[in-house]
């Protein structure tokens, strides 16, 4: 009986869910490295960047910089949420998750408004290599942020339903890993696409 209890309570050092998310992130990293590789070909391959056909179009560096700060802040709040559930503070977990979700949505909102402005200025997916690579790279990241926000909302719903505790928080754990990945990826893209 005692042995059975020991087997029940003995957990592997790395849960299957966590391992699955790590493998998923490996695949995501390869996807983004392919896209960044394509960007590098165009960026280094063109002597003038943006290309002469897009000279008048300026990317909103300052607003995106502030947006970057928002996303980095959301990484911090997500980390705090993870810390809270490890200490069994469910109320704190809900609060931090909510703040993280709001920051994520804010980031997406600012990105969306920027895109509307850029499309009005003539930078579209069909307007050339510059527009194409910009929308594919940044759009792919925005899609990932959207996925992360949906995932976060599901985790928030589960937290409200009281499904997490200090002993059982795999959902928060996996969501945190994914969120941190999305947050860590953005500064690289920002520097590459907006600043270089």
């Amino acid at each position, binding site marked *: 009986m005692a042995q059975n209890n020991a087997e029940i309570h003995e957990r592997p050092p*790395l849960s299957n869910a966590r391992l699955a998310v790590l493998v998923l992130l490996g695949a995501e990293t390869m996807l983004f490295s392919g896209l960044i590789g394509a960007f590098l070909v165009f960026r280094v391959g063109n002597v003038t960047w943006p290309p002469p056909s897009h000279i008048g179009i300026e990317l909103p560096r300052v607003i995106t910089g502030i947006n970057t700060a928002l996303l980095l802040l959301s990484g911090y709040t997500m980390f705090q949420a993870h810390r809270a559930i490890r200490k069994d503070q469910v109320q704190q977990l809900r609060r931090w998750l909510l703040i993280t979700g709001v920051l994520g949505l804010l980031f997406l909102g600012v990105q969306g408004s920027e895109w509307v402005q850029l499309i009005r200025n003539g930078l579209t997916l069909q307007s050339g290599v510059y527009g194409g690579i910009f929308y594919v790279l940044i759009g792919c990241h925005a899609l990932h942020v959207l996925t992360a926000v949906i995932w976060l909302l599901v985790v928030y719903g589960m937290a409200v339903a009281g499904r997490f505790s200090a002993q059982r928080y795999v959902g928060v754990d996996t969501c945190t890993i994914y969120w941190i990945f999305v947050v860590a990826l953005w500064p690289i893209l920002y520097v590459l696409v907006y600043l270089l």
Partner: protein
Amino acid sequence: MNRPFWGFRAQLASLYSKGQAKTCYTTVVWTAILVLFMLIVPTYLEACPGCKNLDDPINKGFNWSILFMMAMPFTVFGLVGGTIFLHFNGNRLSAISNQWRLKVRNLLAGRDKR
């Protein structure tokens, strides 16, 4: 005498007996055509953009891209592998690091008895 050519002939004969001689001969003929083509027009078969003239910006772009993408599998496997390793050996490693920290502290305080 064990010559590769005879081995190849034996293989062909074996395939022929199995009724696959046509497939085998077709493969040999196409391989020969491809090798001949590669020998005749080597310039058109240069597949490595990083090996070309780096003064051209496009080649430079390909070069940077290749270098970046070459590094990524190592980074991914390193990070994922490192995370898994730390999960499985975290307690042992922290015990070792605590031992060393204690040793250094004792050494600095001049209390190392050994």
